[in-house]
């Protein structure tokens, strides 16, 4: 039968102390929307759940040069942030399409990426926005680019005693337009069949820089580097974008699989179609904000 102890520390130090005390027998819980579901479904739980909900000063969205998002920031806060909607629309879209209001009211951005589901809705946007995450542990803190964060399905570089305290998006992303598409059968309460995030910068009508990120396209969320390389210096034209889509959907970039939610060929098709569509949208958004 499920049994665990539940600790609600109110400082990071206390969290680290507990993490060290219990070692692998402890698990962190933030919004609990992954943790509680997993406990119920597997009927297994760590011996101790260490709640991060007491760390209320980690719930913030700030811009001072870079964009800073605290480790306890909920998707609902992201969804209601005008800053995000205007300047980092891909992340806004990723966060606001997660689950339901009820889920977003408690679920955190940090939880979404620490859980590291191949389908995590904010992973694509964070990849497309050059995010870096701050991991703090008893021995100090380190910063990891999001591109190096995921190591496999449900696996990350985070050490057992580390807490993700901040997600940081560099200031240069201000000059990018971005967009995220979540392909799903219905319009809410769904995991993506495939997710496509694009950010780009234009120099007149030439694509000077771009990021293309995909979810459910490989065991981890990925960047489609080959497609990005192809776009560099090319004009914003249908044929160019279509080719980028084709490259992104090809084995050069992803390892698509058949699963219950969708077949590989269909995922490829959606990537092919939505890389151009999101690129267009991202480009429009640059013009709007700058």
């Amino acid at each position: 039968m499920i049994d665990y102890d539940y600790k609600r520390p109110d400082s990071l130090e206390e969290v680290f102390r507990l993490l060290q005390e219990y070692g692998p027998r402890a698990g962190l819980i933030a919004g609990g929307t992954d943790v509680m579901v997993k406990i119920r479904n597997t009927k297994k739980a760590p011996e101790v759940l260490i709640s991060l909900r007491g760390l209320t000063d980690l719930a913030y969205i700030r811009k001072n040069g870079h964009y800073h998002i605290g480790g306890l920031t909920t998707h609902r806060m992201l969804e209601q942030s005008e800053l995000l909607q205007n300047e980092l629309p891909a992340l806004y879209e990723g966060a606001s399409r997660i689950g339901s209001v009820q889920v977003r009211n408690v679920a955190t951005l940090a939880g979404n990426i620490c859980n590291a589901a191949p389908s995590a809705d904010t992973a694509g946007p964070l990849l497309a926005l050059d995010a870096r995450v701050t991991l703090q542990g008893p021995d100090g803190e380190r910063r990891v680019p999001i591109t190096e964060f995921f190591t496999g399905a449900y696996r990350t570089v985070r050490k057992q005693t580390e807490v993700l305290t901040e997600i940081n998006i560099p200031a240069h992303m201000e000059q990018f337009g971005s967009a995220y598409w979540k392909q799903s059968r219905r319009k809410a309460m769904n995991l993506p069949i495939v997710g496509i995030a694009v950010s780009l910068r234009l120099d007149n009508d030439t694509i000077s820089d771009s990021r293309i990120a995909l979810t459910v396209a490989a065991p981890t969320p990925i960047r489609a580097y080959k497609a990005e390389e192809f776009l560099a210096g090319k004009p914003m034209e249908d044929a160019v974008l279509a080719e980028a889509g084709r490259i992104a959907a090809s084995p050069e970039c992803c390892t698509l699989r058949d699963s219950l939610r969708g077949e590989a060929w269909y995922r490829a098709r959606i990537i092919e179609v939505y890389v151009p569509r999101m690129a267009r949208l991202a480009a429009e958004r640059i013009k709007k904000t700058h």
Partner: protein
Amino acid sequence: MKKVSVSFTLNGDPVTADVPVTWTLLKTLREYFELTGAKEGCGVGECGACTVLVDGKAVNSCLYPIPEVEGRSVTTIEGIAEKDGTLHPIQKAFLENNGVQCGFCTSGMIMSAKALLDQNPDPSEEDIRKSIAGNFCRCTGYVQIVESIQMAAKLKE
């Protein structure tokens, strides 16, 4: 089984629950307080039948660990009518406009609507639909639920 003692405000009253630490808010409401208005339709956050308000925000009580409720304020469907039994405008509107059929989704639906209207007294149809996207209903096709919430917004004015 480890137990906790959790003190919080429930529908305006200070209460304390002594329950196993593994219990969710939903289980505590239903079994400890015998408030069975919030329903379990899935137990994993996917249906919204268990929706209650915690500090004014709609949450899935089936995923809410009971220790997290300490010091907070919880509102359930049983706590939104007036003490004299006068229905809340949303409750009235649901009856008036056929926003309820079998009623199983209704408690959660009304609580989601309440969270919305408390924040946004004049929501668009899109706002309403977004706010109840996590509340499944098989009976109504949502149309008259949306209309009920629109009507409630007017009644509240």
